[in-house]
């Protein structure tokens, strides 16, 4: 299936991390959150104003802005 940015993943849906587009500090931060390739991620809910979005990553609920989530490529599951 075609990979899409994590920010495009509809809420409630699961995806699997393919790769990270971010470089430098941003990449480190995403890796620190556990967003390494093959990790399953679920888009859980959006903030009332549409951004950021909360994602379930390895059991934790983490909010990411569109800019950061867009740096993560996932395949929907």
């Amino acid at each position, binding site marked *: 299936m075609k990979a899409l940015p994590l920010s495009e993943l509809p809420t409630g849906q699961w995806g699997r991390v393919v790769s990270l587009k971010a470089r430098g500090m941003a990449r480190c931060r995403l890796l620190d959150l556990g967003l390494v390739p093959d990790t399953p991620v679920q888009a859980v*809910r959006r*903030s*009332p104003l549409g951004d*950021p979005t*909360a994602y379930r990553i390895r059991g934790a609920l983490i*909010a990411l802005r569109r800019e950061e989530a867009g740096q993560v490529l996932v395949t929907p599951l």
Partner: protein
Amino acid sequence: MFYVSGINTAPPEAGPGVVNEAHQLEIRDRIVKTIYREAEAIAARVVRQTGPHRDWEHKVDDILTSRLLGFPIMFLLLGLAFWITLVGANYPSQLLAKALFWGEERLSEVFVRLDAPPWLHGLVVTGVYRTAAWVVSVMLPPMAIFFSIFALLEDLGYLPRVAFNIDPLFKMAGTQGKQALTMSMGFGCNAAGVMACRIIESPRERLIAILTNNFVPCNGRFPTLIALTSIFVGPAAAPGFSSLAASFTVVGLILAGILITLLTSWLLSRTILKGVPTTFTLELPPLRLPQVGRVLVRSVLDRTLFVLARAVTVAAPAGAVVWLLANISFEGQSLLARGAGLLEPFGRALGLDGFILLAFILGLPANEIVLPILLMGYLSAGTMVEVDSLNVLQNILVHGHGWTWLTALCTMLFSLLHFPCGTTLFTIQRETKSIRWAVWAAVIPLAVAGLVCFAVAQTVRSLGLV
């Protein structure tokens, strides 16, 4: 026993020779991946998960951050917190004041029996003891209640949801939602709020959060805001709704503070702290029912008594200094009155008066003592009155010194927006390792407070509303 291999991998920089960027990336990714694989293996061995994710948590979270209800719930909870504080603090405050002023009489008797000179009695009893007693009786009950409510919301896991809801607004202002968390800490104490700014990774956004933290009223300023709204807003509302009206006026002031925070942040990120908002990652910890007993004990012991002790240690010597200023006369006028006279034109322009402005300046060591200083100033000419109820306070302000609702509004706005206390400024100097930023942290709010009060006072006066 097992061997944790991934953690022992040396960082790529430690290796010899030059590696190109792509290669470096790959090594880094592999390190992290190995660490996570190891962590997963350990977790699989030791962590046992019972049942699926709790359903109620998901539902509650959906409501707390819903498009329709997310923001109204935030404001209602804030309003409710103040309403409980206002209603609950009233009676214990009066009781405490009675007890402490009873103690003052006993203390006076001791001085009389020892045949102490009047100046010593004045300095110790009406200066130090009365100021400290005021701070305790006015601060302790609301603080104990408000801190407890806040600690319960914290324990519930609600505060990160606030940051989650409100992040887009801060993003527009050039910063990020974690600033909302540091602001929540600021409700307790701005010095604590400034220290909490360490959670913001970007140095630029951290500085903005530090410089604007004082726009949320700290615990030292709540009593002032609450007392003034109770006097000037409560009676104006329909009977039975006075405390409700007063609490939502305080919420209105806080919303004004948040608006000013956003505007100032926006201005700062376009001028002296130029830059674009950086990354924002925020963990939303699982919601859980607060452990009420433990939270209450911890909040009273760790926060309430701690802040109170600090306030009293500052208020007591400040009380002595102010008493001296009120009682040392120069050419027939006390130093306090002379100072107020000098400040009178500036005070008038801001909708205040000279004594109010002087009280804010002398209150620099701690915001808690602004109102006591003001009263000492107002009463320094005549006899000292025991201010043990809001009625007496109202009498002094309205009938004694011609306060109108505009005076009250401008005093509250100035209290909300003016320079932070000495402790906070000192903390800012320590956190930023720069005296320059500490000076900015005093100058920016002072300018904002002056501008807002001036604009409000002049508008209201030119419209002939007072």
